[in-house]
């Protein structure tokens, strides 16, 4: 499958008419029949275009209806003061954006998202790599270990959150009990109830939940490293540690970088786990952009403000995604033109 993706990326034509993209269905028919090569087979071409139309339309319609329309609506709502009823009349321009950006709860939420992004990568990268290297040895129980590592990832965030919420209960939860036996006393308000600790606690639970994904992806990347390289290095007298540092990890680069991208995008949208564990509290110490916009929208009915927040969330995501592509993913191959096209595909 990987091979396939590469082939696709390499064969993409350099430029496509962007204007045509706006009206895909009509123009598909026109362009096709005008194409000089097929002039002589007009009826067959017509049939072909109808086929294309038939196959592609359902998916495009669904996406237009439930993705495109709501996104356009979000932009529209964001410039009105709208409480969810009556027509959109109270045009306020960019005032909602100003309100969101001046709202400390939102700017804190943005910071929390960034902390989670950085924290997830800083913790999970070395840990995931270590576990993947550990499991990459030939062991009888390797398959079983992989499956076990993957368990938290396939659980829903809600279920994981509810279980951890119980474990983290102040005093009577498992974690405080075990700590008490070791002579350490947990925080009086509980790990999730203390503003200074809550975000870090959420980060640890997220690490538990998503480390399995990192390990599984890294392991798959490790299988792609040819055995000959290891053998050659061993013959040259390299130690296990040298082999990992000089061969395995550099060759794993692309996998690590794409995993980092996935992790970042996931952290930006973080909602479920926070909603279950803390609801954004205590004292807004764990709000994320997503929890902010959901509580503005559904609890306070501030649809204009919530929409402005979601547009900002999207812009932040876009900026981070583009800069990640530019500065980190770029290294995967030489910066030639085919590379640029490939990046767009991701």
């Amino acid at each position, binding site marked *: 499958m990987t091979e396939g993706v590469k082939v696709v990326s390499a064969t993409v034509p350099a430029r496509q008419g962007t204007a045509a993209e706006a009206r895909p269905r009509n*123009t598909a028919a026109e362009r096709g029949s005008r194409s000089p090569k097929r002039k002589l087979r007009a009826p067959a071409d017509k049939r072909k275009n109808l086929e294309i139309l038939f196959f592609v339309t359902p998916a495009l319609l669904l996406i237009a209806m439930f993705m495109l329309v709501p996104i356009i609506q979000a932009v529209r709502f964001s410039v009105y003061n709208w409480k969810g009823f009556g027509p959109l009349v109270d045009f306020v321009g960019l005032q909602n954006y100003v309100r969101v950006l001046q709202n400390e709860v939102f700017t804190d939420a943005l910071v929390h998202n960034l902390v989670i992004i950085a924290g997830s990568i800083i913790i999970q990268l070395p840990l995931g790599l270590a576990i993947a290297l550990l499991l990459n040895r030939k062991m009888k129980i390797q398959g079983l270990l992989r499956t076990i590592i993957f368990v938290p990832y396939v*659980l829903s965030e809600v279920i994981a959150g509810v279980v951890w919420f119980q474990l983290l209960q102040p005093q009577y939860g498992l974690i405080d009990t075990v700590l008490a036996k070791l002579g350490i006393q947990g925080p009086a308000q509980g790990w999730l109830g203390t503003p200074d600790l809550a975000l870090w606690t959420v980060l640890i639970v997220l690490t538990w939940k998503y480390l399995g994904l990192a390990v599984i992806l890294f392991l798959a990347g490790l299988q792609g490293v040819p055995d000959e390289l290891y053998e050659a290095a061993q013959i040259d007298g390299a130690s296990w540690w040298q082999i990992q540092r000089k061969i395995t990890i550099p060759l794993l680069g692309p996998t690590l970088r794409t995993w980092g991208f996935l992790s970042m995008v996931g952290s930006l949208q973080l909602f479920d786990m926070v909603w279950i564990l803390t609801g954004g509290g205590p004292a807004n110490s764990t709000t994320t952009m997503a929890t902010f916009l959901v509580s503005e929208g559904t609890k306070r009915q501030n649809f204009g403000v919530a929409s402005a927040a979601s547009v900002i969330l999207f812009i932040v995501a876009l900026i981070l995604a583009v800069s990640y592509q530019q500065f980190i993913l770029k290294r995967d191959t030489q910066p030639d033109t085919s590379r640029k096209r490939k990046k767009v595909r991701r």
Partner: protein
Amino acid sequence: MSTAATSIKPAMKTKKSQGKYGGNVLVYALSLAVVALTLGPVLYGVLGGFRTNAQLAQAPAALPEPWVLSNYTGVLNNPEFWRYALNSTMIAVLTTVIVVVFGIMAAYPLARYQFRLREPIFMVFVLGLLFPATVAIVPLFILISRDLNLGNTWWGVALPQAAFALPMTVVILRPFLMALPQELEEAAQLDGTSRIGFFWRILLPLSGPGMVTVGVLAFVGSWNAYLLPLLLLQGEMRTLPLGVADFSTEHSADTAGVFAFTTLAMIPALIFFLAMQRRIVSGLQGAVKG
């Protein structure tokens, strides 16, 4: 956790007698530590369901003594639990069917037809990857509950979920379909099969593994989804994640009951997802690698 600690020893002994590398002991010990940390919370929840609240309060870190089944039977006799499970299943099945059918249909011409707008249309799907449902959640809620009157229905959740899962599906399926050898298509054409006939008789049967992969990914996504159902579903239309979350807040004093409810909600899904583990992983890799 205590069980893991005790079982390290036998593993060490057997390894030492077998292997010549002392490093193996460390590897096994570390592996066991990872396993204990990974499974610990899950097992604690499962075992907690077999205890009483009094047991849990007295000694949070102990094993069930005696084992009680009442928490589990209580959940299994709770019609709400089955109702949530039904809703989750139906929404996940609807989502999966729409995603797989529409996805393979869209991927087919994008993979195997030559036409001018092929790449621009594919770009629409690629760009779709950039938009998470979270960004559009407020208008989506209004669109579905007011304009379409689909609030609190299975379709109201399944349709948008399918829409947001389609980009990933097409991006995974297209290279898969492209990889099928061109000779097959030529042979079919020589035998007088139309492109639609090729789609039905040759491409669909051959792309089974790809469709299973995207189907499993869509099913997992839907089964675990929380935000969209949270906004759209109430009362007896709620799905299992909503049920679990609400049960845990409504019965916060009944810790053992919460553990039993949570465990029963995760076990069938866990078995299914772990059985499909390879598909999930290959799907994720297919989407991740470029």
